[in-house]
């Protein structure tokens, strides 16, 4: 992969993290292709071949439905999210599709408590490169932290 694209990919990962941590949901949706898949799944289901996910959105429209839910209908305790993401590994790059993975850790902070390790896992991504633009075809967040601390409201 050329350096330029590698840097762009690194930026995409950093921008994604910044957007979700800033609760900028429009931005979040904009990282995805029209046709896309976003999946947050316990490692157990992933490894045992069970299809169930914790979140499974299979179009950009569905991501927007989620945004509406987060904003308008889902009652939840406010919390801060903070992503720290490792360097991406390029698994493949063919036909304008990058396959990449990265480890991530998400920390959750509620107002009057300590920051806790909320969700750690691995991104498994397929990214479409189109000229200057990188868009997720799919982002799977396969998480180790199977016992969720009550609930996951925001995307990982």
């Amino acid at each position, binding site marked *: 992969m050329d350096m330029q694209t590698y840097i762009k990919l690194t930026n995409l990962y950093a921008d994604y993290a910044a957007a979700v941590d800033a609760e900028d949901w429009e931005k979040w949706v904009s990282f995805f292709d029209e046709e896309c898949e976003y999946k947050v799944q316990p490692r157990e289901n992933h490894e045992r071949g*069970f299809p169930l996910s914790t979140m499974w959105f299979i179009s950009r429209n*569905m991501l927007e439905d989620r945004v509406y839910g987060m904003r308008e209908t889902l*009652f939840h305790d406010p919390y801060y999210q903070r992503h720290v993401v490792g360097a991406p590994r390029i698994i493949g790059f063919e036909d304008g599709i990058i396959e990449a993975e990265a480890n991530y850790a998400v920390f959750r902070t509620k107002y009057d408590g300590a920051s806790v390790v909320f969700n750690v896992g691995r991104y498994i991504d397929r990214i479409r490169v189109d000229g200057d633009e990188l868009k997720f075809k799919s982002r799977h967040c396969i998480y180790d932290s199977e016992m969720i601390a009550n609930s996951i409201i925001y995307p990982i």
Partner: protein
Amino acid sequence: MSNMPAVFPEDPVWQGEGTSRIPFWAYTDEALYKKELERFFYDNHWCYVGLEAEVPEPGDFKRTVIGERSVIMTRDLDGGINVIENVCAHRGMQFCRERSGNKKELVCPYHQWNYSLKGDLQGVPFLRGVKRDGQVQGGMPKEFKTKENNLNKLRVATRGGVVFASFNHEVESFEDFLGPEILGYFDRLFNGRKLKILGYNRQRIPGNWKLMQENIKDPYHPGLLHTWFITYGLWRADNKSSLRMDDKHRHAAMISTRGNAQAKNEVTTGVTSFKESMEIKDKRLLDIVHEPWWGEPTAVMMTIFPSVIFQQQVNSVSTRHIQPSGPDAFDFVWTHFGFEDDTPEMTQRRLVQANLFGPAGFVSADDGEVIEFSQSGFEQKPYHRAVAELGGYGVEDTEHMVTETLIRGMYEYWRKVMEV
């Protein structure tokens, strides 16, 4: 000094008859909680363990818990289902560490005592000592009998592919335990078809375990808390609905039917969670297909006291296992399933609808949250009490949702058993 009530009552007593006012200490007291474990989870009740479909093959096992006690569900080599306490008969190690798998026998790693999949002690290393220079050294005493040192075996009940177990072998039959009416709803869901496991979701909810039972016995909240339902017109207070209990009022079923034509404005008046009707953008989230086995109801939520909820919400079916952990938290394990004869479309439909439920679900994530903050409320003033008087003070089956009768019913049973 002053006539304020003691905020932390020392010997809490439930004042008066009835159960429409529930003292907060019933959710926070450590000693009471231990008693609940003893009387509900470890004695006289059938507790949920899992689905047979989780251990399809001989040698398959699944590790889970009843109350706070680790148990193993195995399928033995004869195809039978066993539930065994995960504590070694030798020196007590909780020996089984994997969550699931397949084994020929159970072995405790510490000293290699090994057991059959039924829990029978089969082998003890150096049982008869070691021979040396013609002498026997060490070994277990003559009186030691392997068959007196099996693992703790629970009594097991299976029905429709669901596995329950009881530490007390004298417990009434599973059918009697549910009672005819609840059993009917149970059989509606588990009618003998083969189940297909779709996967798990797990969450730890920092609230008293009874709050989860209450939540699913509370038809008052869905139309108020779960704005999502209302936003997309999925829930209406005038949907046809009924509430059913067993004789002892410990179990319940909330039965509802969508698509009642007589829209009444009244039912969403004064509900601040009402939002101007929205269009869902990806229709697949609400792509509901009626399945023949439903009969009339489109959703039935069963609360089996104390340990499990059986959920059928349109095309999404799951068991929700309550695993208490201290008075102020429980683990909540969702097992989503389908049926062996589901088409790929139906499987995808169930999976997409799963977005509504579970730890991130459009209408379940908030249940976990309200439970957490109910517990916070209780802890700050244990002397206070909840008011559960919607629909009056009594306990009875109803044909509507505007009542907290099921909650009163559960506490009626609770007071009786707990002798509080």
